[in-house]
């Protein structure tokens, strides 16, 4: 992916840029809001990573201007620790996702991947499939092979989110935000216990495990190789 990173702090910018380049992305860095806005409008990007606090023109203003100019490139906001209400402001300005600094690198990679894919698969799907697991989004039913799987609404949402991001790493925080709408870090193993319950529900006899735990990052649903 071709990514424009707007970050004024050199060290963070270097860390993010290098890491994402290692993941196979093309990175450009803009050090202030005006430069960022200029380059975001001048070229075609797959993703913009925007720090909220930028010199000259702050991140929210940059994104608001872009959206007003009908430039719909996905935007991932970066923000500093503990901002109450910052997330809402960022998303209202036209941001697509939000990440609080400091973050685990795996978290950034997972979100970048999720945002990059969002563009290509916007087509409305009615059936999601991973190996022999099938989810009918219209009928709200799930089947493993021929066996129907009974899920509670929240479990359905959890599985749906995983399946929509099949093959990608989905972090714990992404699940908390998108499935439970929790924008904080619970002190209990909330996600883990729901995942383990979901695993046991979709586990067929002798069928291979579909939901994989990616150590230090999150979960990934994929067909066994």
């Amino acid at each position, binding site marked *: 992916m071709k990514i424009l990173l707007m970050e004024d702090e050199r060290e963070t910018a270097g860390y993010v840029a290098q890491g994402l380049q290692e993941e196979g992305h093309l990175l450009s860095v803009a050090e202030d809001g005006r430069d960022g806005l200029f380059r975001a409008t001048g070229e075609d990007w797959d993703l913009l990573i925007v720090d909220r606090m930028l010199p000259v023109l702050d991140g929210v203003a940059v994104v608001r201007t872009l959206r007003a100019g009908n430039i719909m490139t996905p935007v991932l906001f970066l923000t500093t620790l503990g901002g109450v209400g910052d997330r809402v402001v960022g998303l209202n300005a036209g941001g697509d996702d939000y990440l609080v600094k400091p973050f*685990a690198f795996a978290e950034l990679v997972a979100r970048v991947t999720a945002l990059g894919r969002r563009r290509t698969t916007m087509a409305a799907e009615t059936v999601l499939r991973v190996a022999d697991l099938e989810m009918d989004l219209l009928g709200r039913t799930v089947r493993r092979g021929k066996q129907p799987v009974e899920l509670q609404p929240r479990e359905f949402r959890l599985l749906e989110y995983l399946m929509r991001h099949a093959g990608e790493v989905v972090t714990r925080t992404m699940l908390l935000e998108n499935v439970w709408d929790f*924008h904080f870090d619970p*002190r209990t193993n909330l996600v883990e216990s729901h995942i383990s319950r979901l695993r046991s529900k979709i586990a067929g006899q002798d069928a291979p495990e579909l939901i994989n735990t990616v150590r230090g990052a999150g979960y990934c649903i994929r067909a066994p190789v």
Partner: protein
Amino acid sequence: MLLFRHPLGLRHRFGPRRLLDLIKTGHASLGMPRLLRTTSFRMTLLYAGLFTVSVLLLLAVILWFSTAYIAEQIDRTVFNEIVEIVTETEGRGLQGLRDAVSPLAEKAPPGVYYLLQDNAGTVLAGNMPRVKPVLGVWTWAPPGTGKRIERAGRIVRGRGVPVAEGGYLFVGLDGFELGEMQETITRSFVVILAATIMLALAGGAVMSLGLQRRVEAISRTSRDIVAGDLGRRIAIRGTDDEFDHLAASLNAMLDRIESLMQGLREVSSDIAHDLRTPLSRLRQRLELARRRALSVETLHEALDASIADVDAILDTFGALLRIAQIEAHTKAAGFAELDMSEMLQAMVEAYQTVAEERGQMLAGDIEAGLWLVGDRELLPQLFSNLIENAIRHCPSGARIELAAHLRAGGIEVDVADDGPGIPADLTEKVLQRFFRLERSRTTPGTGLGLSLAAAIAGLHRTRLDLSDKRPGLRIRLLFPR
């Protein structure tokens, strides 16, 4: 102008200067400029000035009305006299008039003037020199000579009428009474004015000194506080006046500031203490890895553990910042109407799995249709913290219940468990930052969960009410409608 014509000696004996001198010597410690600088004394001066102007205005009005009244009296008297003379001499011509006027003029008391002239302007009778015959009411200034010297400057007011054979009759009275009256009025006004100014200045001085003393007491206390004596408070007189109210408000403010300062001091030392432990652990771990890690695997392990340590420290920082931000949020910025029932139901549903894994039971007793204006992101965190608190501190087999009902005072939400509970004397303490019960020291956690919950509750105009459920702990929140 009148004031200066009738000084009455007052200005010299009790003039404002003398009064100020008096105050000056009487309160040498205050010093004159100090008194003059006080707002209340300046107000007094302003009011004294205004009052003087109004007194002068009143004087002018009274003088004007009394002059008009006396002039009218004179006019009437003169008119009656003329009518009498004319009626008496009816048909007897100028000669008859002359006979009538002559004795009158001779016997006229001082200040009464008669004049009869023929059409050539020759004086036939009267006690005044010839005049240009003017008809109707007019005034004449007698020359200031002879025995009427004391009446010099007086004005004679009278009426001239045409009489038989082209004659001219004038009867006039001088304004003696008028002058007397004006003088009396003016004199009394000067006294009143002098007394007014004196009273105003004296009263103003007394009032200013009183006010200044009280204000001085407040600023002295403030200076002491600035100097570091935070425990100082402004004395309240018990008179229940506006100064007492002000003092009470200021004292309340000082109490609040002091408790905040106290809190801040505690928090900073708590932060220092609570972060030192994980930081030193982290340091040991890194040093150990540096010295002992022989393989890449062990090094990675050590690094992972270190990252986890750093994350825990960052968690603490994050929670602290969040609490600080929520507490600073006086305005309910992100508030919107939300379905509390649905939100709580979702919380129960989310945590049931977690509780069941630990062999606990989480039940919800939530009334439907509870709507509340609140923060959509913070409220879940509040309840999540309370539920997790119960889950983490209760043993296996415990029953946790989340109940929400509409009460008279608002929406009442209870998070209750039958776990070990909290000793009654510590129920307030557990809400403080970093406070952890002895038995939970060893479990992971920031010690900030309940503080954060309390901060969010505060933002929603409610508080965490902890009580002993015997056995267990009940945390109750009443969200006002």
